[in-house]
Structure formats: C-alpha cells, structure tokens
C-alpha cells in the first residue's frame, strides 16, 4: 500500500514538473507570438504612413502652395509624381514640437513663426497659423491616439564647405560624403555670392561668381576639391557660397556663409508672410541694440539643371531700423529658389542671410512628428525621394501608443 502511495506521489510530482515546464515554454511562445503580432502591426503602420506621406499629395493636392485648409495629409509633389516630395508642402509643416522652439517676431508681439533651420542665417520662418501640426496630421492619417509617428527628411549626400586660409585669395574646400563613404568624381555646380560695398552707394552689392553658367569642378578620389576665387581676397570677405553636387543620378547641396560682422546677432530676418502670393517680410532684428542697416535682396530661381537666375523683386533695397523695422517683398511663389539678402552696417560691416524658397534649394533637413523616446518598440521605414531634384531620404518612425 505504502509502495503504491509513493509511486503515486512520485508520478504526480514528475507530472506537475513536466506540466510546469511545458506550460512555461508554451507561455513564452505565446508571448513571443503576441509581441510579434503587435510589433508587426506597428511595422505595417509605418509602411502605411510612409506610403501616404510620399505617394500622396494630400487634399487639396497643391495645399503647400495655397492658403487653403488641408483635408488630407500627403507630401508628394503633384507636378512630378512618384517618389518626389513637394518643396512647398514641407515648408508648411510645424516642425517645432513645443512652443519654446518657435520664433516670436517682433519680440513680445504674440506673432510666432515655425523655424525650419539649416543653420545660422539659413532659416525658413513660416507663420505658425499656416503650418500643419502633428496632431492634425495624425488625425488625417487616422492614427490619433493609437499610433505615434515621426518623419525625418534628410539629404542623401552630406556636403561640407569650409574656407581654406593662406592662399591670399578666397579658397573653399568642398567635401562630399554619401552613406559613410566619400564620393569621388562628383560633378559640382557652384556659385559665390560676394557681398561688397559699392563706392557711392548706401547699399551693399551682391556679385555672383560666376554669373551663368555656374562654376564647374569635380571631387578627387577622397571626395573633396578646393575651389579658388582669385578675384576675391581672403581678407575677411563677406560671402555666401552654394554648391550643387551630382553623380550617377544622386544629387546634393552644400552652402557656406561668412560675414564680416562678429556679432552672433542676425541683423536681418526674412519671414514668410503668405505662401499663396510668395510674400516675404524682410525685417530688422528689432532687439533694441542692433543698429539700422541697409540691405540689398535678390531672388534667384533655381532651374532643373542647377543654374540660378536672378529675378527682380519689389523693395529690393532699403534701410531697416527702429524707424522702419521691415519691408515687404514678393518672390515667384511657384518657382523654387534662393532669396539672398545682404546687409551693411553704418560701420561698413557686412553680412548676408538666405531664405531657401523650397526645402531642397539649400538641402535643408527637417523633422516632423512626435518623440519616440521611451516606447518599447519603434518601427522604421526608409525611402529615397527627390525634392527640387535634390536626393533625400525619408525615414518614418512609428510606435504604438497603447503600450
């Protein structure tokens, strides 16, 4: 009898141990499958979002060029189609994730501008009221409250420009890198906007070197090249330099600006007033410290073969200060290009700012959406696109908000 009981006890113990072991393994399998399914859903949502963003122009399809309200989200360029994004729609994204990142101008006026910034002096400042915010975009995508997303749009090529000293004239070094490797043999089309003071004139002048066609160079095996401007001395010149790079169908942009003004303060601030009409406010810094400056502005239209053609604009010159804090001008709303504004202080110091009209004209990177930090699984999708014929990569990150 005792033997049978022990036999039972041993059998039950072994059985329970086996059950626990198998249940644990099954449990892990189920947990993995559930996690996989959840993550797969997020990954599919990332595909949905990037397809909608890249392959749909939105509704209305030219919403980036109009003041009309947006009914459906999409960033495709309707005039090109395929994987081409609209340079105008991208300018209307509210990229600032919180109000502290907005630019208030004039100070304490309550008028805020979204800042898509390449770097100092190369900003796209758009009225916040005309920009599409993240929540509205999420609602249009039908994912508000269920999924979060973020769009990162960055140029494919990394083009760095730096000044090389010691030649007695201006020499600029251009370095081109692709995805982790230098790009040799790339063709460069470049322009130098030399800012100068013309004798007998109160306004600074903008001299373009060369005029047209643009200067041409090629990168060496290490992906860099020195470009010499023998007619510009390197004695603290003021200039802006823009270079368009292309090789085998991939294209990029680089730029560099040097001012003779030491101050960190940007004396002139171009603000977009109206997307539909291409109205731009050329404003003085208005900080109460910066002196009045004269300016000279020119709009250059960027053609498909990367040439810049100057276009006459209203109020192309003027004096801005406390008495006359801003002027209004107008660019061609439906043609991408660069608004180059040079300015001159009473002490004959010079500087320049550039407003890229169209994201691609200066290769401006931009990000739009929420912050994925802290979420356990974030799916990403990558696409190659073109904006104004400049190669970009679009990365979409998506995550589930339900945990």
């Amino acid at each position, binding site marked *: 009898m005792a033997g*049978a009981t022990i*036999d*039972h006890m*041993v*059998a*039950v113990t*072994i*059985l329970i141990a*086996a*059950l626990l072991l*198998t249940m644990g*393994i*099954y449990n892990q*399998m189920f947990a*993995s*499958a559930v996690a*996989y399914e959840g*993550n*797969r859903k997020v*990954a599919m949502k990332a*595909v949905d979002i*990037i*397809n909608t963003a*890249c392959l749909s122009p939105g509704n209305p399809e030219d919403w980036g060029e109009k003041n009309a309200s947006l009914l459906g989200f999409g960033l495709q360029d309707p005039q090109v189609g*395929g*994987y*081409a994004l609209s340079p105008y729609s991208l300018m209307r994204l509210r990229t600032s994730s919180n109000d502290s990142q907005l630019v208030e101008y004039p100070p304490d006026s309550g008028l805020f501008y979204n800042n898509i910034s390449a770097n100092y002096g190369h900003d796209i400042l758009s009225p916040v009221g005309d920009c599409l915010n993240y929540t509205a975009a999420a609602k249009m995508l039908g994912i508000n409250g269920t999924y979060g997303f973020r769009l990162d749009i960055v140029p*494919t*090529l990394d083009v760095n420009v730096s000044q090389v000293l010691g030649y007695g004239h201006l020499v600029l070094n251009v370095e081109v*890198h*692709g*995805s*982790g*490797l230098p*790009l*040799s*043999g790339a063709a460069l089309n470049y322009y130098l906007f030399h800012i100068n003071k013309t004798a007998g004139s109160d306004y600074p002048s903008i001299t373009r070197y060369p005029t047209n066609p643009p200067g041409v160079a090629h990168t060496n095996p290490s992906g860099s090249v020195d470009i010499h401007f023998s007619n510009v001395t390197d004695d603290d010149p003021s200039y802006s330099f823009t270079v368009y790079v292309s*090789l*085998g*169908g*991939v294209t990029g942009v680089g730029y560099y600006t040097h001012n003779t003004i030491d101050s960190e303060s940007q004396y002139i601030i171009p603000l977009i007033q109206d997307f539909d009409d291409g109205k731009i406010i050329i404003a003085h810094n208005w900080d109460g410290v910066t002196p009045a400056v004269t300016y000279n502005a020119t709009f250059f239209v960027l053609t*498909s073969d990367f040439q810049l053609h100057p276009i006459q604009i209203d109020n192309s010159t003027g004096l801005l200060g406390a008495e006359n804090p801003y002027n209004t001008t107008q660019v061609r709303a439906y043609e991408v290009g660069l608004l180059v504004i040079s300015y001159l202080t009473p002490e004959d110091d010079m500087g320049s700012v550039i407003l890229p009209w169209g994201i691609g004209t200066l290769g401006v990177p931009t990000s739009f959406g929420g912050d994925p930090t802290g979420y356990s699984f974030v*799916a*990403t*999708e*990558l*696409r*190659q*696109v*073109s904006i104004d*014929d400049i*190669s970009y*990569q679009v990365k979409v990150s998506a995550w589930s908000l339900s945990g």
Partner: protein
Amino acid sequence: MRTVEVLFVIIILLGALLMAIQFAVLPSPQQAFGTNLRELSKSTVETLDGKGILTETVFKNSSDPAWGDLQKALSASLPPNVVYNLSVYDISTSSGGVINYHLANSISDASFGVDSEAASLLATSPNVTFTITPEKVGEKTGENNTLYILNCNDANGWWIVGYSAQTLALDLHNLLSPYFQTTVLVNSTYELGLLLDGTLLTGGDGETVENAVVINTFGESVPIPSGYYTTVGYDPDATYKYAKYSWYLGQITNQYNWTWVSIVGYPFYYVTNTAYFENDHNGWGIYGMKQVNQAGVNAFLQGLSNQSYTYNATGITGRPGVVDLSSEALDLCNYYGVYPAPYQTSDRALHSSILSTHNLVATEIFDRALPPNEDYIPAATYKHTGGGALTAIGLTRTPDIRVSVLALLMYYRPAVYKSEFGASCTSRLVTLQLGQQGGT
C-alpha cells in the same frame, strides 16, 4: 506502474511541445523588424532615374565610366547595412514572338544572405525614335483629298491676334500635311480666284480640287479675289454688301464637296483684299477689309445647302463660355498626339437650329454648355447631306490652331500606324535587388 503511465504522459506532452515548436516558427528578425526592402528598392531606382541618368547608363557599354558613377551613387544612397545587386537585362523578341531576357550587365557590392527583395524598372533607350505613319485622308475611298491653306499675301487677318496668317499657315502645314496626299499654299487672292474657278494651282500629281479641304487662316476675315467675285459677290441692296460672296463660297464648297475651315471667331465676318479695299477698314482701324457681319455665315450656309441667296444678317451665334473637350476628343488627342487645352472659351458658337434649317450633321468636339446655353455648338464640322462641309471653331481669340487640327482629324479619322514599342534592343529591364547584411 503509475510512474510508467506518467512517463507516457510526459512523452506525449514533450512530443506535443516539440511539434508546436516545429510548426510555430516565428519569422526571422529581418522579416519582422526590417525595412520594406522592395519599396526601398523601388524608390531608389525611381529617384536615380529622376533625370533619366539611370536609363542613359544602362544602355552604355559595360566598360563605360558611367557604370562606376552608378555604383557610387547606389553605395552613397543606400544605408551601410543594405547590400545590392543591380542587373540589367536586354529584352529581345525572337521570330516566334517569344520574349527573351539576356543579362547585359550587373553590379553589386556583396553577396546576399537568405532574404532579399527586388524591384524593377523597364528602361527605353534614349536613342530610340518612334515613328508614326499616318494614313492619308481619302486614301481608303480613293478621293485623295488635297489640303489648301490660304496664305494670301494681299489680305489681312482679324482675331488672329499675335499671329500672322502666314505663320499660322506654316504651322498648319507642319501639323496637317502628313495626313494629306498633297498640300498646297494659296499665296494670293488671285490664286484663290483660280481655285474657286476649279483650276489646279500646281498642276502636280495628286492635286485635285474636288473633295479638298480649304483652311482659312485669316480668322474672321475671308480673302476675296478682285474682279469676278467682287462683282458677283456684291449686293447693292444689302447693308453689308459683300455677304453674297460668302454665298458663292458656300455654293462652291457644296459643288466640289470641300470642307471649309474657319479657325476662330465668327466665320465670314469680313472680306479682305488689301488692294481692292485699300481705303476701307473693318470698323476697328484695320484697312484692306470690309465688314459682312453675320450675314456672311448665313449666306454661306444658304450656298452650302443649295438654297437661293437671301440677304439675312440675323445673329445665329451665342456665348456659352467655358466648354470642355468631349471624352471622344480627348481620346483622339492621345491618338494623334495633338494636345490643345481641354478647356476653351467659346463666344462665337453657332446655334444648333442651323442643323435642321440647312440639313447639316455636326461632328462636335466640345461638350455642350449647361442650360441656358445647351443649344449652342462651340466647335464642329457641319456636313451638308448633299455635299460639302464647314468646320467652324467658335472660340474666342487668340486662335489655337490645334483645335482646328483636332476638329479635322476627328471628322476624317485617318488611321495612324505607329512603330512597335518592343523593337529589339530598345528596351532593357533593370532590377535592383536589396538584402540586409548580418542576417541569416
């Protein structure tokens, strides 16, 4: 004994577990969490070909430096953990109609693991030219219609703002002469007089007065030869005294089975001859022409329909406004490769009542406007059942001659024979295969 039974149970449990593990295979990490390589491949190929550089490269010899540039561009575009293989296949068609793909060239940066995705692009050689061979108008019926384009050097145009009749004549010649056996420019009102009398102008092979198409490039004014036609075409009792000339034109159109084309505005609104009307102007300061008003088109329709001449200056046109090309006309735009703007403004549209009063059948190229303008025909070719036709483009100035060309092609419907798209060695298939490194 119980222990043995439990052991059996455990074996069953473990067996079930093993079977479950065997069948419940989770996907590989790349499949579960990797980026969609097929879409990435597609977007890469599309953007590289954005300016046609990829297409240009894949037709080059494999030793051409452009292949090296393409390889660098691919390496620069794709993330470092993505490997690629770009293969180009030549497409050819054998005599039996079988399509063959031969590998022409291939570039890659590493070997793939188990998983990879690919996208493809069909590239057409930039050196290929596609030819079209139009059928000649009247070729099927043996009529071999001749195209006459009025290019008179002694006449003035009206409502052809920005153009001269001579430049329009040249453009029309370029657009339409491939569709006609013979094209003749009528260079003076004297030559027009000869033509109206039934005389061949060139005497060359193929020119026939019967069944011809006569295009008036002078807009609302019509050249008039001095002499006989300024005499018989003159009605001393009428307000607009040269309306009767239009009646003669209608008669001749009917007699020779012509198609008379008015390219813009009111048809036959003025007569023009810079020598004969040297001191007369049209009321707007253009000398060399006299106004006929709407008596002109009424008289022409009377002549076209073999009715006797009765002076009638009653207006028969309306202003339906913006009108759209019909779906049939849009199809023909694609067929013939003629693309006028699909929306046009019509303010000289003829009233549809002329169809019944003059026994006409209209081939319309625009959809009619909405009520109350649905009875006006913006542009059409009106064929008289007894012979002859009038193509009247009742659009506003400035004339778009492509509308007239489309109206004529829609009326005559010549076939267009195009070269085959899949001709040998003109197409190549480009496939870009992508894989992720570090996977299984």
